């Protein structure tokens, strides 16, 4: 995977370019011949029923799923998956400090927590939080670690109305800064100007795979 070394926003190169991507999982073709390009400031919504390969596509772009054909060139990305990525025995602040150290991010943990509406929870162990609160702490890493490309898998899950509004605001900020977002969701994301990619459910690959 090629990582863009240029400063964010200064690049005319697309932040994500996928060419002729095909993905087969357990003998079933999820998608094939997928080509797309995402430039700075663009948002792509992934739609499709369960099992259509939205998560697999995101994991492939993130670099967590290697069994695909075709090419993926992506800028430095942040992946937000089904598992929140929040350690239960640690406090919200400790979790975010760890993230800041890992990605050499500059954001302060307290500011990030305030941004996601979790101010005052810095010293609370995450195992004492609700699922929605844990997701908010997880969202704070999008603030702490900066990356030109966000890969969000169902970011609205377990969030209340204000939490969902928060996700939309974070996405809008990211686009405004010149980043790009790929987001798989069942609900409507309501981001203006977002492109939509509809993935369908295919027949088992036995018939479709090329010889």
């Amino acid at each position: 995977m090629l990582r863009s070394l240029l400063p964010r926003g200064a690049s005319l190169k697309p932040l994500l370019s996928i060419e002729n991507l095909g993905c087969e999982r357990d003998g079933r073709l999820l998608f094939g011949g997928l080509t797309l390009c995402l430039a700075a400031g663009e948002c792509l919504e992934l739609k499709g029923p369960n099992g259509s390969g939205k998560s697999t596509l995101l994991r492939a772009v993130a670099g967590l799923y290697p069994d695909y054909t075709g090419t993926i060139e992506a800028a430095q990305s942040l992946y937000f998956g089904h598992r929140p990525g929040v350690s239960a025995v640690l406090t919200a602040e400790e979790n975010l400090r760890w993230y800041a150290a890992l990605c050499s991010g500059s954001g302060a943990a307290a500011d990030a927590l305030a941004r996601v509406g979790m101010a005052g929870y810095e010293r609370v162990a995450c195992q004492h939080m609700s699922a929605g609160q844990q997701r908010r702490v997880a969202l704070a890493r999008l603030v702490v670690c900066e990356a030109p490309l966000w890969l969000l898998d169902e970011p609205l899950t377990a969030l209340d109305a204000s939490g969902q509004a928060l996700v939309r605001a974070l996405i809008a900020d990211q686009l405004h800064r010149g980043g790009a977002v790929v987001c798989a969701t069942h609900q409507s994301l309501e981001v203006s100007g977002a492109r939509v990619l509809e993935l369908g459910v295919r027949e088992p690959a036995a018939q479709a795979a090329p010889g």
Partner: protein
Amino acid sequence: MTLKELWHRLGSPRWFYRFSGPWHVALGVLAALLLTAGTVWGLVFAPPDYQQGESFRIIYVHVPSAIVAQSAYLLMGAAGLVLLVWRMKLADMVLAATVPFGMTMTALALFSGAAWGKPTWGTWWVWDARITSMLVLLFLYMGLYALRQAIPRQETAGRACAVLALVGVINIPIIKYSVDWWLTLHQGATFTLTEPPSMPPQMWIPLAINVLGVYCLFGANLIGRLRVEILEREQGTQWVRELVARQAAGGGR
């Protein structure tokens, strides 16, 4: 065909299936001839050992199986490296196909070693350096086998086994050395098995023939397993369907 071309073509299971058919037969026939010749010569015509008498003839089973069992593990290490670096499908199949043969040969070496121990040392089991190393090797094989069985996803299982095989290959020389040293600590001077170079030619030539034969058997077995594995994994593709249809219609390969 240059080596580079061959390397490139090995990436295609279909090409390998076509190419390997004659080799499968040839190696199988060669293995049968060599093993028959070596075994008959070794068991019937070679002179008995002046120290051990007739029982030394177990060497014609023990040594070839032990040698090929270790070679098979080395091959898996190489296949693991190829799989992790170049993502070659065939390497994963080699990894999967070698384990049963290697494990069988290790078990055979252990069994023949035990059977040899009875007349030589008067006991079925001796913690001889070579036999102990083979026992550890058997556990390494069992680990690889168990890991592949435990991981449901085929591609993942292949890569996981590749990592394990590589780590194992790096460790095998150290394990062998440490076991050798351990033996000097606990037993002092041990009775070493008769080394081939010190044997008269009537004794070691059949042994060499059997070693060659067991390598051919390994090759034939590996290719046979690979061909089955290829058909199974590529069963959805056009060429396998055509092949099956042709076979069903009574045609050749």
